[in-house]
Protein backbone atom coordinates (compact mmCIF):
# COMPACT_ATOMS: atom_id res chain seq x y z
CA UNK A 1 0.00 0.00 0.00
CA UNK A 2 1.44 3.32 -1.09
CA UNK A 3 1.43 6.11 1.44
CA UNK A 4 -1.09 8.90 0.96
CA UNK A 5 -1.54 12.27 2.61
CA UNK A 6 -4.20 14.93 2.34
CA UNK A 7 -3.96 18.67 2.73
CA UNK A 8 -6.43 21.51 2.87
CA UNK A 9 -5.33 24.76 1.30
CA UNK A 10 -6.83 27.73 -0.46
CA UNK A 11 -5.30 29.67 -3.33
CA UNK A 12 -6.58 32.69 -5.21
CA UNK A 13 -3.79 32.53 -7.78
CA UNK A 14 -3.54 29.49 -10.04
CA UNK A 15 0.17 30.26 -10.50
CA UNK A 16 0.82 29.81 -6.75
CA UNK A 17 -1.24 26.62 -6.58
CA UNK A 18 0.68 25.19 -9.57
CA UNK A 19 4.03 26.11 -8.00
CA UNK A 20 2.99 24.41 -4.74
CA UNK A 21 1.96 21.20 -6.57
CA UNK A 22 5.28 21.24 -8.46
CA UNK A 23 7.18 21.57 -5.17
CA UNK A 24 5.15 18.67 -3.69
CA UNK A 25 6.02 16.44 -6.68
CA UNK A 26 9.68 17.47 -6.44
CA UNK A 27 9.64 16.14 -2.87
CA UNK A 28 7.93 12.88 -3.91
CA UNK A 29 4.24 13.64 -3.28
CA UNK A 30 2.14 13.45 -6.43
CA UNK A 31 -1.37 14.85 -6.64
CA UNK A 32 -4.08 12.19 -7.12
CA UNK A 33 -7.18 14.33 -6.56
CA UNK A 34 -8.14 17.89 -5.79
CA UNK A 35 -11.54 19.38 -5.10
CA UNK A 36 -12.43 22.72 -3.55
CA UNK A 37 -9.21 23.07 -1.58
CA UNK A 38 -8.95 19.42 -0.46
CA UNK A 39 -5.86 17.78 -1.98
CA UNK A 40 -4.77 14.14 -1.88
CA UNK A 41 -1.20 13.09 -2.63
CA UNK A 42 0.44 9.73 -3.17
CA UNK A 43 4.07 8.94 -2.36
CA UNK A 44 6.33 8.24 -5.32
CA UNK A 45 9.77 8.96 -6.59
CA UNK A 46 10.52 12.70 -6.71
CA UNK A 47 9.80 14.05 -10.19
CA UNK A 48 10.05 17.34 -11.99
CA UNK A 49 6.45 17.86 -13.09
CA UNK A 50 4.82 20.89 -14.64
CA UNK A 51 1.30 21.37 -13.22
CA UNK A 52 -1.37 23.48 -14.86
CA UNK A 53 -4.93 24.19 -13.70
CA UNK A 54 -7.79 25.14 -16.00
CA UNK A 55 -11.24 26.36 -15.00
CA UNK A 56 -14.16 25.15 -17.13
CA UNK A 57 -17.86 24.58 -16.69
CA UNK A 58 -18.12 21.03 -18.10
CA UNK A 59 -21.47 19.37 -17.46
CA UNK A 60 -21.64 16.48 -19.95
CA UNK A 61 -19.62 13.25 -19.97
CA UNK A 62 -19.00 13.49 -23.75
CA UNK A 63 -17.65 17.04 -23.33
CA UNK A 64 -15.37 15.88 -20.50
CA UNK A 65 -13.95 13.02 -22.60
CA UNK A 66 -13.35 15.35 -25.58
CA UNK A 67 -11.72 17.98 -23.32
CA UNK A 68 -9.44 15.52 -21.53
CA UNK A 69 -8.49 13.83 -24.86
CA UNK A 70 -7.40 17.16 -26.34
CA UNK A 71 -5.07 17.74 -23.38
CA UNK A 72 -3.81 14.13 -23.45
CA UNK A 73 -3.01 14.47 -27.19
CA UNK A 74 -0.99 17.59 -26.35
CA UNK A 75 1.02 15.81 -23.65
CA UNK A 76 -0.96 16.71 -20.51
CA UNK A 77 -2.14 14.01 -18.09
CA UNK A 78 -5.37 14.92 -16.31
CA UNK A 79 -5.74 14.18 -12.61
CA UNK A 80 -9.11 12.57 -11.71
CA UNK A 81 -11.24 14.77 -13.98
CA UNK A 82 -14.94 14.98 -13.11
CA UNK A 83 -17.98 16.80 -14.47
CA UNK A 84 -19.38 19.90 -12.76
CA UNK A 85 -16.36 20.62 -10.55
CA UNK A 86 -15.09 23.73 -12.32
CA UNK A 87 -11.36 23.05 -11.89
CA UNK A 88 -9.20 20.68 -13.96
CA UNK A 89 -5.68 19.63 -12.98
CA UNK A 90 -3.04 18.54 -15.48
CA UNK A 91 0.64 17.67 -15.34
CA UNK A 92 3.36 17.08 -17.88
CA UNK A 93 6.76 15.47 -17.48
CA UNK A 94 8.05 17.22 -20.57
CA UNK A 95 10.63 19.66 -19.33
CA UNK A 96 10.50 22.22 -22.08
CA UNK A 97 10.66 25.94 -21.30
CA UNK A 98 7.38 27.75 -21.88
CA UNK A 99 5.35 24.49 -21.79
CA UNK A 100 1.85 25.68 -20.96
CA UNK A 101 -1.83 24.92 -21.52
CA UNK A 102 -2.38 28.48 -22.78
CA UNK A 103 -0.58 30.15 -25.66
CA UNK A 104 -1.84 33.72 -25.33
CA UNK A 105 -2.46 36.28 -22.58
CA UNK A 106 -6.22 36.59 -23.15
CA UNK A 107 -6.93 32.89 -22.73
CA UNK A 108 -4.54 32.59 -19.77
CA UNK A 109 -6.36 35.47 -18.02
CA UNK A 110 -9.71 33.95 -19.07
CA UNK A 111 -9.60 31.24 -16.40
CA UNK A 112 -9.96 33.94 -13.70
CA UNK A 113 -13.00 35.34 -15.50
CA UNK A 114 -14.50 31.82 -15.61
CA UNK A 115 -13.78 31.40 -11.86
CA UNK A 116 -15.71 34.63 -11.23
CA UNK A 117 -18.59 33.39 -13.44
CA UNK A 118 -18.70 29.93 -11.83
CA UNK A 119 -18.72 31.47 -8.34
CA UNK A 120 -21.63 33.60 -9.52
CA UNK A 121 -23.48 30.57 -10.90
CA UNK A 122 -23.03 28.74 -7.58
CA UNK A 123 -24.84 31.64 -5.88
CA UNK A 124 -28.04 31.18 -7.90
CA UNK A 125 -29.37 28.04 -6.09
CA UNK A 126 -28.78 29.76 -2.73
CA UNK A 127 -31.43 32.40 -3.42
CA UNK A 128 -34.45 30.00 -3.38
CA UNK A 129 -32.95 28.02 -0.47
CA UNK A 130 -32.57 31.13 1.66
CA UNK A 131 -35.97 32.38 0.54
CA UNK A 132 -37.64 29.07 1.49
CA UNK A 133 -35.98 29.05 4.92
CA UNK A 134 -37.34 32.52 5.67
CA UNK A 135 -40.79 31.78 4.17
CA UNK A 136 -41.26 28.59 6.21
CA UNK A 137 -40.22 30.35 9.39
CA UNK A 138 -37.11 28.21 9.86
CA UNK A 139 -35.12 31.41 10.00
CA UNK A 140 -36.88 33.99 12.14
CA UNK A 141 -35.30 37.30 12.91
CA UNK A 142 -37.26 37.63 16.20
CA UNK A 143 -36.24 34.22 17.52
CA UNK A 144 -32.62 34.89 18.16
CA UNK A 145 -32.87 37.25 21.09
CA UNK A 146 -32.72 36.17 24.75
CA UNK A 147 -35.54 33.74 25.47
CA UNK A 148 -35.42 33.44 29.32
CA UNK A 149 -38.78 34.82 30.57
CA UNK A 150 -38.34 37.98 32.55
CA UNK A 151 -34.59 38.16 31.99
CA UNK A 152 -34.55 41.92 31.63
CA UNK A 153 -36.45 42.38 34.93
CA UNK A 154 -33.79 40.43 36.87
CA UNK A 155 -31.04 42.18 38.76
CA UNK A 156 -27.66 41.43 40.30
CA UNK A 157 -26.19 37.94 40.39
CA UNK A 158 -29.39 36.33 39.12
CA UNK A 159 -29.31 38.50 35.99
CA UNK A 160 -25.59 37.93 35.38
CA UNK A 161 -25.98 34.15 35.78
CA UNK A 162 -28.92 33.86 33.35
CA UNK A 163 -27.42 36.37 30.95
CA UNK A 164 -24.04 34.61 30.74
CA UNK A 165 -25.70 31.17 30.55
CA UNK A 166 -27.83 32.14 27.60
CA UNK A 167 -25.37 34.29 25.65
CA UNK A 168 -23.57 31.37 23.92
CA UNK A 169 -26.94 30.07 22.62
CA UNK A 170 -27.89 33.52 21.37
CA UNK A 171 -24.57 33.78 19.54
CA UNK A 172 -25.04 30.31 18.00
CA UNK A 173 -28.54 31.17 16.81
CA UNK A 174 -27.32 34.45 15.38
CA UNK A 175 -24.53 32.69 13.48
CA UNK A 176 -27.01 30.13 12.20
CA UNK A 177 -29.26 32.90 11.01
CA UNK A 178 -26.45 34.84 9.36
CA UNK A 179 -24.55 31.87 7.85
CA UNK A 180 -26.31 31.93 4.46
CA UNK A 181 -25.78 35.69 4.35
CA UNK A 182 -22.08 35.26 5.12
CA UNK A 183 -21.74 32.63 2.38
CA UNK A 184 -23.37 34.97 -0.13
CA UNK A 185 -21.12 37.82 1.02
CA UNK A 186 -18.00 35.64 0.74
CA UNK A 187 -19.02 34.60 -2.80
CA UNK A 188 -19.46 38.24 -3.81
CA UNK A 189 -15.99 39.06 -2.44
CA UNK A 190 -14.52 36.07 -4.35
CA UNK A 191 -16.19 37.21 -7.58
CA UNK A 192 -14.74 40.69 -7.11
CA UNK A 193 -11.23 39.32 -6.39
CA UNK A 194 -11.24 36.92 -9.36
CA UNK A 195 -12.46 39.68 -11.65
CA UNK A 196 -9.73 42.02 -10.40
CA UNK A 197 -7.03 39.38 -11.02
CA UNK A 198 -8.54 38.82 -14.51
CA UNK A 199 -8.18 42.54 -15.32
CA UNK A 200 -4.60 42.54 -13.97
CA UNK A 201 -3.63 39.43 -15.97
CA UNK A 202 -5.05 40.89 -19.19
CA UNK A 203 -2.66 43.82 -19.05
CA UNK A 204 0.34 41.71 -17.95
CA UNK A 205 3.16 41.33 -20.43
Amino acid at each position, binding site marked *: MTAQISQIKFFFRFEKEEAWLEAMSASGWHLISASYGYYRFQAGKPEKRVY*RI*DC*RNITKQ*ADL*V*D*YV*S*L*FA*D*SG*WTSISPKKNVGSYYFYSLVDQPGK*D*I*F*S*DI*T*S*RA*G*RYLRMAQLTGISLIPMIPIYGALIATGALKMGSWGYLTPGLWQMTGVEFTRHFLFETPFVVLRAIGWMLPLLVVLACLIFIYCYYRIYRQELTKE
Partner: protein
Amino acid sequence: MNLNKLLPLTETTYYILLALCEPLHGYGIIQRVKALSAESVDIAPGTLYGALENLSKQSLITLVAEDAEKRRKIYALTDLGRQVLGMEFSRIKRLVEISQPVLGGTL
Protein backbone atom coordinates in the same frame (compact mmCIF):
# COMPACT_ATOMS: atom_id res chain seq x y z
CA MET B 1 -25.80 39.88 -38.04
CA ASN B 2 -23.15 42.37 -39.11
CA LEU B 3 -20.20 40.13 -39.93
CA ASN B 4 -17.80 43.07 -39.99
CA LYS B 5 -18.16 43.18 -36.21
CA LEU B 6 -16.25 39.89 -36.06
CA LEU B 7 -13.26 41.41 -37.89
CA PRO B 8 -10.33 41.65 -37.58
CA LEU B 9 -9.77 38.08 -36.38
CA THR B 10 -6.95 37.29 -33.98
CA GLU B 11 -4.06 35.32 -35.46
CA THR B 12 -5.12 32.22 -33.50
CA THR B 13 -8.72 32.47 -34.71
CA TYR B 14 -7.65 32.98 -38.33
CA TYR B 15 -5.42 29.90 -38.23
CA ILE B 16 -8.15 27.78 -36.61
CA LEU B 17 -10.69 28.75 -39.28
CA LEU B 18 -8.09 28.16 -42.00
CA ALA B 19 -7.32 24.70 -40.58
CA LEU B 20 -11.03 23.86 -40.42
CA CYS B 21 -11.47 24.15 -44.19
CA GLU B 22 -11.28 20.38 -43.77
CA PRO B 23 -13.01 18.66 -40.78
CA LEU B 24 -10.59 18.03 -37.87
CA HIS B 25 -10.65 17.23 -34.16
CA GLY B 26 -8.99 19.49 -31.59
CA TYR B 27 -5.46 18.08 -31.70
CA GLY B 28 -5.75 17.75 -35.49
CA ILE B 29 -6.28 21.54 -35.61
CA ILE B 30 -3.17 22.13 -33.47
CA GLN B 31 -1.07 19.95 -35.80
CA ARG B 32 -2.52 21.44 -38.98
CA VAL B 33 -1.86 25.02 -37.75
CA LYS B 34 1.69 24.02 -36.85
CA ALA B 35 2.24 22.62 -40.34
CA LEU B 36 0.58 25.58 -42.11
CA SER B 37 2.67 28.10 -40.18
CA ALA B 38 5.97 26.23 -40.63
CA GLU B 39 6.02 25.38 -36.87
CA SER B 40 5.80 29.04 -35.85
CA VAL B 41 2.28 28.88 -34.36
CA ASP B 42 1.73 26.28 -31.64
CA ILE B 43 -1.74 26.65 -30.09
CA ALA B 44 -1.90 25.25 -26.54
CA PRO B 45 -4.90 23.00 -25.67
CA GLY B 46 -6.51 25.36 -23.12
CA THR B 47 -6.40 28.21 -25.61
CA LEU B 48 -7.78 26.03 -28.42
CA TYR B 49 -10.62 24.65 -26.28
CA GLY B 50 -11.81 28.16 -25.37
CA ALA B 51 -11.50 29.31 -28.99
CA LEU B 52 -13.57 26.34 -30.24
CA GLU B 53 -16.25 27.13 -27.63
CA ASN B 54 -16.42 30.76 -28.79
CA LEU B 55 -16.42 29.93 -32.51
CA SER B 56 -19.22 27.38 -31.98
CA LYS B 57 -21.22 29.97 -30.06
CA GLN B 58 -20.77 32.42 -32.96
CA SER B 59 -21.85 29.63 -35.38
CA LEU B 60 -18.61 29.98 -37.38
CA ILE B 61 -17.83 26.29 -36.82
CA THR B 62 -19.97 23.29 -36.03
CA LEU B 63 -19.68 19.77 -34.72
CA VAL B 64 -19.80 17.28 -37.60
CA ALA B 65 -18.86 13.94 -36.04
CA GLU B 66 -16.85 12.06 -33.43
CA ASP B 67 -13.65 10.12 -34.06
CA ALA B 68 -13.69 6.31 -34.24
CA GLU B 69 -13.04 5.89 -30.50
CA LYS B 70 -15.92 8.31 -29.76
CA ARG B 71 -13.53 10.41 -27.69
CA ARG B 72 -12.83 13.46 -29.83
CA LYS B 73 -15.31 15.84 -31.40
CA ILE B 74 -14.72 16.72 -35.03
CA TYR B 75 -15.41 20.27 -36.16
CA ALA B 76 -15.82 21.95 -39.56
CA LEU B 77 -16.46 25.45 -40.88
CA THR B 78 -20.07 26.54 -41.35
CA ASP B 79 -21.09 28.63 -44.38
CA LEU B 80 -20.93 31.65 -42.08
CA GLY B 81 -17.42 30.66 -40.95
CA ARG B 82 -16.27 30.31 -44.54
CA GLN B 83 -17.73 33.74 -45.31
CA VAL B 84 -15.95 35.38 -42.35
CA LEU B 85 -12.66 33.68 -43.27
CA GLY B 86 -13.04 34.99 -46.83
CA MET B 87 -13.78 38.52 -45.60
CA GLU B 88 -10.70 38.48 -43.37
CA PHE B 89 -8.57 37.11 -46.22
CA SER B 90 -9.75 39.96 -48.50
CA ARG B 91 -9.10 42.53 -45.77
CA ILE B 92 -5.53 41.35 -45.23
CA LYS B 93 -4.92 41.03 -48.99
CA ARG B 94 -6.10 44.59 -49.52
CA LEU B 95 -3.79 45.83 -46.74
CA VAL B 96 -0.87 44.05 -48.40
CA GLU B 97 -1.76 45.49 -51.83
CA ILE B 98 -2.04 49.02 -50.43
CA SER B 99 1.22 48.69 -48.48
CA GLN B 100 3.34 47.17 -51.22
CA PRO B 101 3.97 50.28 -53.37
CA VAL B 102 4.44 52.46 -50.28
CA LEU B 103 6.85 50.19 -48.47
CA GLY B 104 8.30 48.66 -51.62
CA GLY B 105 11.97 48.10 -51.05
CA THR B 106 12.18 50.16 -47.86
CA LEU B 107 11.72 47.21 -45.50
